[in-house]
């Protein structure tokens, strides 16, 4: 078989992989597309798993990226529940766990990331969960109801969203964090305090500056979390949310250049010109910040899916984007854009006590990042100001009497 008949194979049927397949067809790609996923499901959206879906506000059908009929109609061969064992860039072949070999003309790696494991005694007890896949979310949801207590290890977005959802379902929630404040890795201190207070007021407990020594069990099922201090926090279910690690083993073994992720350029191309990588698995240069980084977000997955689909179909590359993400907790919409690199000052706009405010991170007179709580104008304007590398006045930025339209003008 000629390699051109082999078309595109996409490894990883998540948000990035599923979108790449759909965009290739939208952009007129006419050769075969094969989409291979380890999970038993067609591509679905992960963000709602800790948000609307967990609270029961949205159903499984809404989660799906495309309807089940889409793949056959679009001529995309979707192979779910399939593991890829090896990649040979020289032969341009993939070997599946079953032993089957597939030829490709162009390969897209969209293998994502997996939850960072917590290697402590008791981690294998029933009821010690992570939250990444729909199956993970099902297991968590089944454990959250009145009279049950959720212990979250790690005060990041996943843990906070899960805690908010647990409260909505009537379960108790306690967040255990190693650092003296939650969101220490990602958010400004004002924001950490705001979220801590907001969750506490809705019944979530926090144990800060605490290490976790072990999970305690009874009859093979988790009953508590033992802290480094010896104190035991009782729980009925535990969620470990301490970050993710890229699924780059396939790429690494095949000899593709990797750092903390598969290294890609601005068109999502790897060190092999016939192999692209997109989404959470990638390590990409961020021109705006003059450094490489691994982004974990839907916005990143979709931007790189567009980059790869454009490159493969010969379209001009899409405009570079400022990275952004969002989180829903209770009635709060938290949106952020950019990354707080090289920041020497922060400007607060609005009063956190009002539940509507934004924090701008500045390097000199330029905005590097914005964090906005129930403040969409600040988020949108901030994103545009970051993209334009515009010089801003701190006084105007902090003055809510001046609209963001005027500030951004």
């Amino acid at each position: 078989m000629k390699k051109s008949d082999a078309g595109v194979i996409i490894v990883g049927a998540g948000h990035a992989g599923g979108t790449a397949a759909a965009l290739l067809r939208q952009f007129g790609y006419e050769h075969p597309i094969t989409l291979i996923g380890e999970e038993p499901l067609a591509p679905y959206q992960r963000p709602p798993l800790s948000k609307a879906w967990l609270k029961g506000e949205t159903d499984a059908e809404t989660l799906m990226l495309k309807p089940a009929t889409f793949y056959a109609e679009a001529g995309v061969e979707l192979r779910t529940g399939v593991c890829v064992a090896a990649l040979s860039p020289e032969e341009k072949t993939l070997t599946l766990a079953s032993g089957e070999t597939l030829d490709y003309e162009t390969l897209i790696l969209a293998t994502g990331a997996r939850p960072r494991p917590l290697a402590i005694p008791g981690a294998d007890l029933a009821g010690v969960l992570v939250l990444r896949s729909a199956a993970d979310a099902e297991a968590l949801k089944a454990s959250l109801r009145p009279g049950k207590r959720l212990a979250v290890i790690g005060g990041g977005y996943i843990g906070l969203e899960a805690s908010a959802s647990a409260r909505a379902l009537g379960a108790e929630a306690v967040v255990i964090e190693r650092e003296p404040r939650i969101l220490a890795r990602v958010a400004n201190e004002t924001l950490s305090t705001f979220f801590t207070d907001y969750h506490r007021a809705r019944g979530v407990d926090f144990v800060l500056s605490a290490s976790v020594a072990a999970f305690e069990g009874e009859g093979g099922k988790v009953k508590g979390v033992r802290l480094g201090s010896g104190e035991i926090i009782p729980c009925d279910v535990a969620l470990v949310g301490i970050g993710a690690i890229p699924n780059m083993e396939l790429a690494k073994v095949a000899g593709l250049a990797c750092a903390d992720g598969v290294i890609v350029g601005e068109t999502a191309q790897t060190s092999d010109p016939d192999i692209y990588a997109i989404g959470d698995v990638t390590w990409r240069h961020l021109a705006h910040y003059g450094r490489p980084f691994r982004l974990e977000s839907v916005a990143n997955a979709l931007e790189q899916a567009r980059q790869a689909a454009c490159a493969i179909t010969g379209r001009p590359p899409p405009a570079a984007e400022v990275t952004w993400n969002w989180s829903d907790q209770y009635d709060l919409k938290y949106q952020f854009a950019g990354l707080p690199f090289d920041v020497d000052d922060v400007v607060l706009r609005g009063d956190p006590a009002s539940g509507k405010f934004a924090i701008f991170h500045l390097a000199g007179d330029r905005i590097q990042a914005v964090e906005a709580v129930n403040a969409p104008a600040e988020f949108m304007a901030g994103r545009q100001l970051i993209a334009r590398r515009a010089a801003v006045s701190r006084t105007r930025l902090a003055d809510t009497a001046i609209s963001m339209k005027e500030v951004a003008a």
Partner: protein
Amino acid sequence: MAKITYIEHDGAEHVLDVKVGLSVMEGAVKSNIPGIDADCGGACACATCHVYVDPAWADKTGTPTAMEESMLDFAENVEPNSRLSCQIKVTDELDGLIVRMPESQH
């Protein structure tokens, strides 16, 4: 089901039967219609599902919330009939709706 006509910036028309209860955005995305990106999946967090509602349908599609208004304020090429299509729920009353897509969502 409601019949919705989506018109791309270059004039290409797509007439779809969209299930009542979905959003106008979901109707397009689930059928892989180009022109609506909807990066956040309908959380009103990104403004990449911007459409122009045919003026004849403005009343039936309702008025945007403060959140949607703020997001739209900063979208490209906004017009008085601009909406975020993830915030328009499809109802029987919207049978026949016509929306146009902007040149770009990014």
